[in-house]
């Protein structure tokens, strides 16, 4: 990603401009490169606003191990530096540790920052703590996944239903609009797992009557488990046309399964999700047709930006869709795409 730093900053600045100028919430790439110069000026102005004492923003994410969260963190830190605020970034060791995450949120509230950013592992468990934050007068912005509460001001996230539907459209196109497909999902509980699955399945059911989703299984994003699941799916359906993995571990599991079975690249159309070196390699070698990527750094940037705006009493867009994008051999080298991928 070294070569894309400049581009990344430009995109960041442009995105910041789009947001402040028109409350931008598009699923599209920021398409107007001409806005870059103005954007530099725009974000420069905001910096002035935060100068009278550094704002303290506590971000509690779903994890820190996964590179996705590291990308969110780096986006948040970039933005924080740009706006002259300080952020802390915390998260539980795994995405099943709801309890540990709540503990972190509690500690964040006790610390008394100017704003809290939270990505909920569980949409209900966080409700009482949000009320505590409200009583303490700490505004809450959310990112990636929300909580069933009126307290938070806004959320910056990928619209996973849209992302899942995007995967379905490309799947349909690649397999010629008919045949059997299977889904290896990473969770039947957390919202990204559910929505990426539902967005895909709903789109197929609505628009492609000749495509049948024959099986949906859950591998917890575990590479090994997902590989074994994909192999049983292929064993049960010798005429499987396509497989869709809803996160990195699920998708790599499918890739490994196909390799282990000695199938030719392209014999089954594989669509993945997120990033990672293994998926990038699989696309380059033709084993994987393509993947849906989010913009994790964008999520981090918008979260910090929203927090600062809330602290300063500005209005913010309630839901900021940070976008989802199709990546395949034809565009994987593009700079805009490279900025969203991580190794």
């Amino acid at each position, binding site marked *: 990603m070294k070569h894309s730093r400049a581009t990344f900053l430009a995109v960041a600045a442009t995105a910041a401009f789009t947001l402040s100028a028109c409350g931008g919430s598009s699923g599209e790439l920021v398409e107007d490169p001409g806005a870059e110069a103005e954007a530099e000026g725009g974000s420069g102005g905001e910096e002035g606003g935060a100068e009278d004492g550094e704002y303290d923003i506590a971000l509690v994410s779903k994890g820190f191990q*996964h590179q996705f969260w*590291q990308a969110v963190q780096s986006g948040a830190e970039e933005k924080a530096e740009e706006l002259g605020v300080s952020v802390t970034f915390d998260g539980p060791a795994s995405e099943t540790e709801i309890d540990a995450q709540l503990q972190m949120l509690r500690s964040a509230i006790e610390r008394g920052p100017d704003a809290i950013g939270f990505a909920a592992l569980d949409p209900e468990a966080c409700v009482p703590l949000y009320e505590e934050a409200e009583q303490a007068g700490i505004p809450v912005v959310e990112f990636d996944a929300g909580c069933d509460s009126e307290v938070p001001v806004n959320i910056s996230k990928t619209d996973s239903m849209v992302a899942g539907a995007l995967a379905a459209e490309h799947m349909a196109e690649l397999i010629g609009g008919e045949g059997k497909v299977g889904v290896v999902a990473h969770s039947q509980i957390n919202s990204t797992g559910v929505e990426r699955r539902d967005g895909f399945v709903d789109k197929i059911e609505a628009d492609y009557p000749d495509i049948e989703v*024959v099986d949906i299984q859950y591998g917890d994003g*575990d*590479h090994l488990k997902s590989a*074994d699941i994909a192999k*049983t799916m292929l064993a049960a359906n010798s005429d499987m046309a396509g497989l869709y993995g809803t996160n990195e571990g699920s998708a790599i599991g499918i890739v490994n399964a196909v390799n*282990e079975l000695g199938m030719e690249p392209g014999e089954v159309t594989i669509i993945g999700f997120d990033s990672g070196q*293994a998926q990038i390699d699989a696309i380059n070698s033709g084993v994987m047709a393509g993947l849906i990527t989010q913009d994790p750094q964008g999520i981090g940037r918008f979260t910090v930006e929203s927090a600062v705006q809330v602290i300063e009493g500005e209005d913010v867009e309630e839901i900021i869709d940070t976008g989802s994008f199709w990546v395949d051999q034809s565009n994987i080298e593009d700079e805009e795409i490279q900025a969203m991928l991580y190794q």
Partner: protein
Amino acid sequence: MTESQAPAKERQTSDEGAEAPPEQSTGGWRGRLGQGLQQLLAFGTLMALMLFFAVASPNFFTVSNLTSILLATAVIGILAVGTTFVIITGGIDLSIGTGMTLCSVVTGLLLTDMGLPLIVGVLGGIAFGALVGFINGFNVAVLGLPPFIATLAMMMVAQGLALVLSGVRPIYLSGVPGFQQIALGQLVPRIPNAVLILFALALVLGVVLTKTVLGRMTYAIGSNEEATRLSGINTRRWLLGIYALAGACTGLAGVVLASRLSSAQPQLGMGYELQAIAAVIIGGTSLLGGRGSILGTLIGALIMSVLINGLRIMAVQSEWQTVVVGIVVLVAVFADNLRKRRAEGGGRA
């Protein structure tokens, strides 16, 4: 564990005695009779399951799917075979899941960052596993910590270290020539090497458990550690060896896992220990110690993978798959209890 006496020097003397086999007859043999029955039961269950799924789905009993089942058994099976020793001593090792991950990270670093030859990376991973096991053994046998707690702590240490050493990112090994062949090459046509490794390991450790002093000590310690110690055997030293042996298996599992994934994934591994322990229990090894077999464990691991594979082939929902496996573990423990009670009724020593 009330071994507060016996400082290091005193133990030296009793060591020689331990080498001479006839010292111990404290137990272990007692369970052997029932063990054949338990293995037969487990084997029968395995066959019944396979028959059931073969009838239920035409896609189950195919060469390709049976190969998939064997490959899916490899990693858990290697862990389970090693940890069978620990469980027969009446101990438990919760660190094998994340320990396995740590070893795969160590192998990954040796092969990529340090650029060492393949064999060094592989042996390094296994040796590191043995070291982790040795530390577990030290904590249990010398410091006298309960195995559950000692290995629970090690589970966390290993998970943390795997993350620290890897820099919280996967280490890709696709650039290491020949590494993927360790698990996925086919010395025997159609059978991935990982499966051969599992069966070869099971064969060797089966012989070790039944035909060597180490094996007899494993049973003896599990039957009655105190009596074994009082009969002049240095149980601490044997326990160290047993935990180190299980650790080496953990290391081997880590190498096979990394090979199969062409990468070391530092966040993986939590929960694998419970699957391995479940395989051991289904295979008829008693959690109370003193009884168990490698063959049983192998069958137990196969039962788990056949069950999960078959349910998936039939497109049963994931959540129900977990319920079914849980019930099978319950039944296995119940059967073990039943048999033990009968054995006790039939006149125990």
